[in-house]
C-alpha cells in the first residue's frame, strides 16, 4: 500500500505505464524478476487497440498490403541500421508478440494474428488500416473487407465522429456491397463511447439493438458496428449480438479515445497489479533518480512530489515521447525529462517539421529520441552507454517514425522484450 511503503526494493524499475512499459513489466514478471511499474496509464486510452508490426516499407508504400511484415522488417533494418528493430532478431519480435498476446487472452482479451502476413481492416474514416494483431472483435472486419462481402454498416444516433454513411460513401466504388443505416440506443441523446459501451452491456439494450438492426437487414453477410461493443464484457456483448442476429458482427475502430484502447488499459491495469512479482504505482512518477556506488538506482517517486523511495538494480525507461512526457521540447530544443540523457535531434527547430503536414517522408522530429547500444542502453555524448543498468524501450527511442511506419505496437513490445532480456544478461554477468 502506498502510504506504508516508504521504501521499495526491486530488481527492475519500469518507468512509464504505456504499452512498452506494461509489456516490459509483464515480460520481467514472467522471468521472475521483481518489478515495479510506475507511471500514468491514461495514454493507453489513445491507442487504437490494434498492434501494428510494420505496415510496409519504405513509408511511401506503407500501404502496400502485399508485403509480408517480416520481409518489410528485414528490408527496413537493412536500410536503417539505427532503427530499434535492428537491435533485435526477428524471432525475438515474434516471441514478444506471442508472449504478450498470450497474456492478453489469458486475462480475457483475445487477439487475432495471421503470423506471416499483415491484416487489413476498415476504419471509421473509411480508410484501410494495415496492422498485425487485432482484437477478435474486429476479425470479421478483415474477412468482410478481403472478400468484399455484402455488409451492413450500423452507426448510432448521437455518437458523433462516426458515420456509417461516410464509410460506405468512401469505399463504395471498391466495395459495392456496403450499405449503411443509423439506429438509436436509449433516448438517442448524445452518446460518448464509454457510456454507450456501458449501455450495450445491458441485455435488454442488446435486444432492442438487434430488433433495430433487423429492420435494416437486406440479406447482408456481415454487420459492422463502431468499436463500442462493451468494455469489460466486450466479448459477451459481441457474441450475444451475433447469436441473436445469426450473423457475424465486427467492430470498426474509431477516433480515440476509443474502447479497444480502453479495454487494453483496463486489463493491463487490473492484471498487472494482480500479477505475482509486479508492483504497480499508477498515477505516480519518478521525480528524481540517483545512483549509489554499487550502481543501485535510488528513485524518489510520488504523485507530483516525493512519497516513496524505490531501490532498483536496473531501470527500463519507457516514458514515451512528448505526449507521454518522456521527452520535452522548448523553443530551444528537446531534452529527456528524467536523466537528461542526450537526445538525438535535428540541429534547429526550423528543421523539426515539414511545411506539409502529410509530407511523404514524415517529420524529422519524429525520428528524434534516445540512441542506444545493442543492449538498449541509452548512449551518452561519448557514444558509450550512460549507465550499464539503464535501458530504454518504446517510442522514446530514436530513428523510428512509428506513426508513418505503422510499427508502434511492434516497437513497444519488441523493445520491451529486448530491454528485459538485456537486463537479465546484465544481472547474470554482474552477479558472477
Amino acid at each position, binding site marked *: 500500500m502506498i502510504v506504508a511503503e516508504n521504501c521499495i526494493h526491486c530488481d527492475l524499475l519500469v518507468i512509464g505505464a504505456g504499452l512498452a512499459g506494461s509489456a516490459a513489466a509483464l515480460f520481467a514478471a514472467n522471468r521472475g524478476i521483481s518489478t515495479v511499474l510506475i507511471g*500514468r496509464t*491514461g*495514454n493507453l*486510452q*489513445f491507442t487504437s487497440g490494434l498492434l501494428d508490426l510494420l505496415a510496409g516499407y519504405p513509408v511511401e508504400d506503407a500501404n502496400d498490403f502485399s508485403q509480408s511484415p517480416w520481409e518489410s522488417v528485414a528490408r527496413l533494418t537493412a536500410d536503417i541500421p539505427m532503427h530499434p528493430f535492428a537491435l533485435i532478431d526477428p524471432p525475438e519480435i515474434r516471441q514478444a508478440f506471442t508472449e504478450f498476446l498470450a497474456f492478453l487472452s489469458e486475462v480475457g482479451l483475445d487477439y487475432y494474428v495471421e503470423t506471416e502476413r499483415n491484416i487489413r481492416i476498415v476504419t471509421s474514416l473509411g480508410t484501410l488500416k494495415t496492422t498485425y494483431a487485432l482484437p477478435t472483435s474486429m476479425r470479421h472486419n478483415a474477412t468482410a473487407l478481403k472478400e468484399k462481402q455484402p455488409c451492413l454498416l450500423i452507426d448510432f444516433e448521437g455518437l458523433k465522429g462516426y458515420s456509417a454513411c461516410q464509410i460506405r460513401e468512401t469505399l463504395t466504388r471498391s466495395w459495392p456491397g456496403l450499405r449503411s443505416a443509423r439506429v438509436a440506443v*436509449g*433516448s438517442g*441523446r*448524445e452518446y*460518448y*463511447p*464509454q*457510456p454507450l459501451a*456501458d*449501455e450495450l452491456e445491458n441485455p435488454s439494450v442488446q435486444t432492442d439493438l438487434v430488433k433495430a438492426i433487423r429492420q435494416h437487414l437486406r440479406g447482408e453477410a456481415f454487420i459492422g458496428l463502431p468499436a463500442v461493443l462493451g468494455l469489460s464484457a466486450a466479448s459477451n456483448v459481441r457474441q450475444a449480438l451475433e447469436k441473436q442476429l445469426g450473423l457475424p458482427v465486427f467492430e470498426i475502430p474509431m477516433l*480515440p*479515445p476509443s474502447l479497444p484502447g480502453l479495454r487494453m488499459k483496463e486489463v493491463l491495469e487490473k492484471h498487472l497489479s494482480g500479477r505475482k512479482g509486479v508492483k504497480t504505482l499508477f*498515477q505516480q512518477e519518478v521525480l528524481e533518480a540517483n545512483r549509489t556506488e554499487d550502481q543501485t538506482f535510488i528513485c524518489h517517486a510520488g504523485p507530483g512530489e516525493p512519497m516513496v523511495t524505490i531501490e532498483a538494480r536496473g531501470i527500463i525507461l519507457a516514458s514515451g515521447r512528448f505526449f507521454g512526457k518522456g521527452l520535452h521540447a522548448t523553443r530551444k530544443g528537446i531534452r529527456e525529462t528524467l536523466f537528461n540523457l542526450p537526445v538525438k535531434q535535428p540541429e534547429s527547430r526550423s528543421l523539426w517539421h515539414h511545411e506539409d503536414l502529410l509530407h511523404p517522408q514524415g517529420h524529422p522530429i519524429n525520428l528524434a529520441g534516445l540512441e542506444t547500444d545493442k543492449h538498449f542502453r541509452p548512449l551518452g555524448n561519448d557514444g558509450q552507454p550512460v549507465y550499464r543498468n539503464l535501458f530504454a524501450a518504446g517510442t522514446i527511442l530514436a530513428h523510428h517514425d512509428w506513426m508513418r511506419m505503422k510499427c508502434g505496437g511492434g516497437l513497444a513490445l519488441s523493445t520491451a522484450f529486448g530491454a528485459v532480456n538485456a537486463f537479465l544478461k546484465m544481472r547474470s554477468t554482474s552477479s558472477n
Partner: protein
Amino acid sequence: MVFTVSFYLALSICFFGVFLRMAGWARTEFDPQDSVGSLVRRLSGIFTGSLRILSSRRIVWIAAALIRDVFLQIPLLRAGFFRWLAHMCIFYGFVLLVMMHALGSIITAFFFPDYASTLDPFMMLRNLFGAMVLFGILVAALGRMRRNRFFRATSRSDRLVMFLLALVIVSGFLLESVQIVSAPIFDQMVDDYMGTDDTEIRDPLKAYWAKEFYVVFSEQPSSQDLETGQTLHEENCAACHSRPGSAFLSFSLSRLVGPWALWLNRVRADIWLWYIHFGICFVALALLPFTKFFHLISVPLNLMARAGVGLSSHPGTPDDITRLALEMDACTHCGVCSLHCSVAPIFRIIPNTNILPSEKLMSVTQLAHGKQLDATHLEAVSEGSFICTECFRCTERCPSGISLQTLWRKGKQTLIDRDYPDPHGWVRQLTTDQWADRLDRCRDNKPLCDTFNRYRHAAQDPNTFSACIQCSICTNVCPVVAAADGMMPPEVTPQQVMNLLRLNLKELALGSRMVWDCVTCYLCQEHCPQGIRVTDILYDLRNIAVERLQPVRRPSSRVHPDGCKTDDPHGKNRNEVS
C-alpha cells in the same frame, strides 16, 4: 388595600399570560403544508393528550423525570457544574423564600403557630435563602461573562430576568435593614402593644432597643436603666423579636445605612421600600409568562412531556406541532447547543448567526409562528439551516430537553416549501443559460478576476485548465454524463465546462446541471492525461455560483443595477473585482 388589589391584578395577569402562551402552542402552524386543526381542537388535544398520558403507566416515567430532570436538574449538571449550581441556588432559594416568607402567614404559620417573621430561625433562614438567590445570580452572571465562543448568547431578556430577580431580593434586604433601624416602627409597636405614653416606662425600653437592637432614635432616651429596659423587653417584645444579628445580611446592611438612619426614619423609608419591594415582586409575577421567567413552567413541562410521549421524527399531526411549539418555548437561549454544535466553526468564515443552533432556533420559531420574514432573513435562515449536518449533538446536550434535531428537519422542510431551499435546490429552478441571462440583465458583467493562483480559485486561474487537449476522457468516465439517459441531460460535459472557462464564458457554466449534479467522484480528475483538476474546478464553480447567482435569484428584489445584493451577509467572501 392597594396591596391586595395589585396582588390579585398581578396574579390574574400572570394566569392570563400563561394561558396565552399555551394557546400560542395550539395556534402554531409550522409549515403551511401541514393540516393543523382548529384552535379548540388542538387545545382539547393538549388536555386530552396529557390526561391520557397521566392516566397511563407513563406517569411513572413522568414522575421520574420530575425528580431527575426538574428537581435535581441533572441535564443542567451535564451541561456544566456552575450552570447547575446557579440554577439550584436561584430556584431553591427563591422557592423557599416564597414558601417561608412571602406565603409565611399561610404556610409557615401553619406548621409553626408562633411564627413571626422577626423571629429566629425564620429571620436567619430568610437571609440565607436570599443570599442563595443572590449568589446564584452572581454565578450565572459571571458564567455568561466568561462563556465566549464566537458570539454572545446573552440577550436582553436574559439580563432583564436576572435584573428583576436581583431587584426583588436586594429590595427585600434593604427593607429589612431599614426596618431594623427604624424608630418610627418602634414607637408604633410600643403604642400598639404597650399603649402607654409614660416616658418612665418607654425610655428604658428605648435605651435597651437602641443598644441591643440598634434602633436609631432622634433624641437620646433620658433614662439609661437597661435592666428595666430588658425586663420590659422580655415581658412585651421577646416573644416576637429575636436579635437582629441573625438577619446577617440585612443586619450588616443596617450598620452601613446607620449614619443616615435619622433621615431615613424621618422620611419613613421603611414604608417606601415596603411598597417598592412588593411592587417589584408583583411586577415580576405579572411578567412571568412574558419573560424568560416562563421557562420555570415550559422547561419542566417539556421535560415531563418528553418523558410522557416520544416525538415522531417526522412530525406532522396537529398534536406533534403543538409539541414542537412547546419544545420551542422551552428554549432558555442558554447557548449550550451552540457551544457543542459541530458546524459552529463555520460561523467564523460565514458570519451568519443562523448557523448557530441557539440563534437559528429563534428564526425557526418565528418561522413556525408564521411571522413574515423578509427575503434576506429567510435566505440567511436557509443558509444556516442547510449547513447543519444533523449530527444530533445539540439535541443530546440541550438542558431543556428540546428535540432540536426534529426542529431542524422540520425547519428545512418548511424552508423548502417556502421556496428557500439550499443552493442545490434553487439553482435547479433555472437552466444554465437562463442564469447567464439573469447575470446579464443585472448588468453584472464584471468578469471575475482571473489573476488568482490560489487553490480556491481553480476555476479562475487559466493555468489550471488551459492544458486541456480536448481528448474528452473526462466526459467518457463521468458517471453523471453516463446516467443522463432518460433524465435531464447535464447541459454541458466536464470537457465543455473547461472550454467555457477557456472561452471566458464562466457565466454560462455557473448554473449548469454538470456543475450541480457532479457527484465529486473525481474520476475525471484522476483520469485526465493532462492532470487538470476538473473536479476541483467544478467545486469552485459552485462556490462562485452560490455567491453570484443568489443575488440575482429574485431579480425583482434586492438587486442593484450592478447586480450586488443590497445587504450581503458575507461580503468579505466575494471576489469580484471592479
